[in-house]
């Protein structure tokens, strides 16, 4: 009964109530966007965005501005710049992202070393402070979740066709560049807004882990997107409650719960008839299959 009592005490705290709502919204938002980001092979992009956000925050601190306000335009500008570099340089995307994010991290550390003291503390920047989330933050995250839902519902077909084949999407009238940039901007804004709660080091876990777990469990796209969002929100709530009861850091607790959820999904998928391990690759099942037909 100690656990029930501890849980009651945790839930009675107003900051914990805000944190739970914040975790639910941020987790669902991460899972929702992550489901598209993972399919479009933008997982590493969200990681690079998270790390580079530290530079945006450092610039805000150096300039004496509210870091959160600086972070959104910084993240959007950074995302668009990286996208331009990827298109123009013709270097492998992962290598380029590695260059950009490690360099921006280096600049961020140099910038932070110039600041005598930062009220927020470096620990909070790295791992987030979801317990310090305000009602205003919740309003912003809620509005962003709503906006992302509307945009992704209206552009779902375009996003999927673009993932499958850019020419097929283009022939269908999908403006590939517009949708690519819109999605990247949305991802950048979500990362920037979630940094306060999740921290620069853990933000990509919020985007990638629930989506990968959802992918293992789903055979329909609508179910995949819903599962990813529900897993994202659910794991965040469970992680925060565990953190509240055990008095361990909240952000890392959420990520550990997400990882446990992923392992569970992996286990379940191995015993389901649709599992790739059970079904086997298509080219082993039918004579007309051809791996070269997949690009």
């Amino acid at each position, binding site marked *: 009964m100690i656990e029930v009592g501890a849980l009651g005490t945790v839930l009675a705290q107003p900051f914990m109530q805000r944190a739970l709502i914040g975790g639910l919204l941020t987790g669902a938002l991460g899972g929702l966007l992550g489901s598209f980001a993972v*399919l479009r*092979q933008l997982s590493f992009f969200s990681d690079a965005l998270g790390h580079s956000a530290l530079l945006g925050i450092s610039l805000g601190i150096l300039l004496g501005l509210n870091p959160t306000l600086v972070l959104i335009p910084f993240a959007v500008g950074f995302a668009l710049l990286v996208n331009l570099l990827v298109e123009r340089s013709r270097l492998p995307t992962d290598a380029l992202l590695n260059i950009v994010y490690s360099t921006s991290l280096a600049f961020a550390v140099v910038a932070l070393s110039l600041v005598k003291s930062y009220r927020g503390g470096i620990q909070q920047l790295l791992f987030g402070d979801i317990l310090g989330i305000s009602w205003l933050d919740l309003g912003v995250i809620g509005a962003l979740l709503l906006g992302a839902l509307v945009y992704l*519902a*209206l*552009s*779902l*077909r*375009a996003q*999927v*066709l673009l*993932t*499958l*084949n*850019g*020419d*097929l999407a*283009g*022939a*269908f*009238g*999908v403006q590939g560049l517009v949708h690519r940039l819109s999605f990247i901007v949305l991802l950048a804004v979500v990362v920037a807004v979630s940094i306060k709660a999740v921290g620069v080091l853990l933000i990509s876990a919020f985007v990638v882990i629930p989506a990968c777990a*959802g*992918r*293992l469990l*789903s*055979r*329909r*796209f*609508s*179910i*995949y997107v819903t599962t990813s969002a529900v897993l994202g929100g659910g794991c965040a709530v469970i992680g925060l409650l565990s953190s509240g009861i055990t008095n361990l850091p909240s952000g890392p607790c959420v990520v550990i719960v997400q990882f446990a959820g992923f392992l569970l999904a992996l286990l379940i998928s191995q015993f389901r008839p*649709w599992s*790739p391990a059970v*079904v086997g690759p*298509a*080219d082993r*099942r*039918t*004579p*007309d*299959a*051809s791996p*070269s*037909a*997949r*690009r």
Partner: protein
Amino acid sequence: MKAEPVLRVEGLTVRRDGMLAVDGVSFELPSESDTALVGPNGAGKSTLVAALLGLLPHQGGTVQILGQRLGPLGQLPRSVRAQIAYVPQALSLQGQFPLSVAEFVGFGFDPPGPTLPWRGGERRRQAVRRSLVRTGCGDLGDRLLSELSGGQLKRVLLSFCVVRPRRLLVLDEAEAGLDAPSAAQFQLLLLELRRQEGWTVLHVSHDLDMVRRSCNQVLCLNRRLCCSGSPDHALSPSRLSELYGPNMVPYRHHHERSGSLHD
């Protein structure tokens, strides 16, 4: 009175990566015709198709689809865009892609433009079911797209095209990656659907045997349009040597009209 061609191309010039890839190409696709675009690798076939679909900007000439002029940056009215279907060589389906065959085909149901994925309800479900049955994929609706064999995937791509009426079908080496029986099965299905739907078809193909058997017009491209006309005219040994080089030896299979190229 002569019917308006579905596609009219005049003096089309396209640059790709700073290089002249298509140089002053002109041709027409009459309504319900079946045309093959052939030529060696690097001849500009895919570039030409991309420009016709408005995926690449063109630097000179004009393209008219169903009487509407394609803008230099690929702009086309939605009503015309809705009449175009395209079958690519392949889809990017890495790992277990969580998209069912029925969902994919359903994406083809609504005309271009922003739309909610669940719009259409029962009407959409019936159209998807019908199109899958017509392409011999009636039992594949619940399968994942990434679980399909190459031949099944190509048939599902045709279901995507047939789920809603269209006028122009463009195929980019659609038979690539298929073994001979699957390619033949695909061609038979395509022929049947073309007749039923009244499609005007443009294939990019390296399979000259198929081109001889199925198409009524051939366009030979090597940056410029080298020749065009009926398969017998455009694929004569002398013209093939001109197009592919002197080392290309055409041969015919034991049956009457077939032929292929080997180097």
